[in-house]
């Protein structure tokens, strides 16, 4: 198994499950489940035990591996060299399970839905561009930018709202940008995170073929997950594109005065999506954007930037729900953390975070106290009440 030797480098210091100041636990699955095996160090040793045949594959083993949200906090916190490929190791261990066919039913169903139906919801391909109706964004045909929306933005009702609000900003700015609509296929980021590297390769190759055939050079993604796949993984398959997350382009457009943020007197805080922040290194652009909104009051949550607490939706969990909900689910903890800032708006930049946190707001019963809004909505004065 690739990266197997890394398991010998972990000596269970436990730093991986903490936040930067070691003041709090910052590993989403550890927060939820409480057992050491659900923390990175524990997973490491479990994988080592499996590699050395001390344990067999079991439902529990699968659950432990598949509840990792791939948030990358452990990569930040680990003090050993193994930190570089820490998540790759977990992915390799998952690939071993996938190869055997030994994956939890929810994970299996996610793979099957993507490979048979092209999306996790088994919705028809023809519905894929429907979010764009009436927005005025064109189908990509030699435009400067491709706006890549992804599965969640195309089908999930909250994701579609975000796609619509982001696309509206681009259209208002007069940008040369088009979307694939019906032709769009899954980026595969979460397929890879779940260990199905063969299905990921297929998706990557199909996407690269499609983008090249269309003459796509610059891609703007709605979803940080796609941002990660296109930027980091696709070049390995010969797909070289200029990839930006929509927040980066927003900042450029604001600086060029192509878009003018409406003023707002809201008090907001910002949640760093793991695939934009820790994985993507983009922490400043969203904050710069918020600074450009006249009148907006911004304050940071306790854990922010590299230290942000994951919403729990990564690692395919958004689709498989392996992590589950409950009071100690990371999303609900994060909402409580946002409430501590006294803010009325929790700004997000990822459609998965948007839904995870919105569901958590409802579960906490704090709908009247805090609203989830994406950056595009914030530029327009905040989410419609």
């Amino acid at each position: 198994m690739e990266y197997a030797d890394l398991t010998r480098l972990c000596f269970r210091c436990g730093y991986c499950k903490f936040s930067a100041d070691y003041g709090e636990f910052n590993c989403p699955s550890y927060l939820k489940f409480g057992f050491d095996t659900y923390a990175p160090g524990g997973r490491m040793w479990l994988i080592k035990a499996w590699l050395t045949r001390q344990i067999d594959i079991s439902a529990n083993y699968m659950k432990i591996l598949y509840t990792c949200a791939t948030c990358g906090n452990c990569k930040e916190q680990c003090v050993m060299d193994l930190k570089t490929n820490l998540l790759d190791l977990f992915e390799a261990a998952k690939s071993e399970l996938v190869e055997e066919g030994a994956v939890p039913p929810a994970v299996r169903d996610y793979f099957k839905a993507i490979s048979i139906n092209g999306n996790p919801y088994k919705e028809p391909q023809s519905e894929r561009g429907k979010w764009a109706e009436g927005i005025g964004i064109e189908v990509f045909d030699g435009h400067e930018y491709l706006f890549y929306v992804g599965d969640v933005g195309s089908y999930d009702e909250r994701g579609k709202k975000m796609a619509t609000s982001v696309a509206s900003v681009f259209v208002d700015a007069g940008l040369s940008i088009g979307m694939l609509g019906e032709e769009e296929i899954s980026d595969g980021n979460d397929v890879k995170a779940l260990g199905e590297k063969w299905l990921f390769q297929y998706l990557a190759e199909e996407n690269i073929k499609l983008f090249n055939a269309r003459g796509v050079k610059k891609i703007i993604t709605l979803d940080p997950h796609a941002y990660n796949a296109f930027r980091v993984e696709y070049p390995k398959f010969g797909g070289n594109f200029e990839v930006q997350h929509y927040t980066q382009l927003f900042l450029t457009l604001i600086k060029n005065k192509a878009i003018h943020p409406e003023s707002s007197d809201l008090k907001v805080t910002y949640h760093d999506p793991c695939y934009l922040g820790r994985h993507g290194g983009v922490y400043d652009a969203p904050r710069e954007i918020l600074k450009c909104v006249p009148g907006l009051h911004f304050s940071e949550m306790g854990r922010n930037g590299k230290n942000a607490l994951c919403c729990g939706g990564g690692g395919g969990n958004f689709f498989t729900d392996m992590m589950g909900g409950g009071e100690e689910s990371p999303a609900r903890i994060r909402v409580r953390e946002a409430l501590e800032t006294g803010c009325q708006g929790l700004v997000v930049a990822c459609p998965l975070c948007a839904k995870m946190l919105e569901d958590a707001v409802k579960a906490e019963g704090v709908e009247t106290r805090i609203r989830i809004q994406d950056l595009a909505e914030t530029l327009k004065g905040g989410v419609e009440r």
Partner: protein
Amino acid sequence: MSSRVLVITERQDGSFGKVTYEALSEGRRIADCINAEVTVAVLGDCREADALELEEYGADTILLAEIASLSSYGTDSYVNVLEKLAKELRPQIILLGATDHGKDLAAQLSARLDAGLAMECTGIKLENGEFTFTRPMYGGKVIADIKIKGYPKIVAVRPNVMKMEINRRKAVIKDLAVVVGKGRTLVIGKKVQSEGKINLTEADIIVSGGRGTRGDFGPIEALASLLDGGVGASRAAVDAGWRPHNDQVGQTGKVVSPTLYIACGISGAIQHLAGMSTAKYIVAINIDSEAPIFAKSDFGITGDLFKVIPAIVNELRTKFPATGISRPLCPAAVSIALF
């Protein structure tokens, strides 16, 4: 040779299942079209007095085989008895309900008699002396009209579809002499599911509750019970600990395909819709008129489920009272009585 329609009844917990009355009503309607007699075979634990209920729905002859041991041998013994009966009576049509028991029986009988079978039939037409049977295919995404060559034609009617119709007559009751013989399979146990819980994935009617119930599933359960349906829950309800994960309908729960799905206090996130969008009829009750579920429903009521559901329950109890186990009313009968 006079034409005959043979209806096979099903006993459930000491009474005829609703589908038996549905099948019998349909049998009566067919018989009236082809000038035939309706013979009903009652196999299993049924006293003569109870069997006479079938007169209400148009039975001409009732064959009673009161043999407790029939149920112990499973499908084989039923099929053996019915094979003999079918060869004696030579009916044009054999009708039964497509319950699990009925499907099992119909399939084996079809092969035994080398007779064509319309499984889960939702409609029967007679034109120019030829029968056309309608049934769902491809998970209900396609409706097929089929013709069956030869006789008998076996029809397993889908429950909750054929209209029950009162058609009272004086029936002749005969004892059906059967030799059960030894079946190849032996039923060694039968356990009714705990709390009469209905398996959601195969349920025909489901009433589901979500966040809007605020944890009180009382109205949901009451409505489900009245409709003989299963109780489902959204992820929010399961997440909050109000219902077990087993009840969750949705992408990461159960995928269901009932004839009727009533969503109460459920907003309609795509993850939930993925679990029930193939339901034939979807009804939504939600206090929020903007809830996404309405866009995917056939009928919707904006309102407080704690007021709306009791109103529905009340209406059902009034219009369709259970007057005891043996004499259900059907819509046609109600309108006849009123006017």
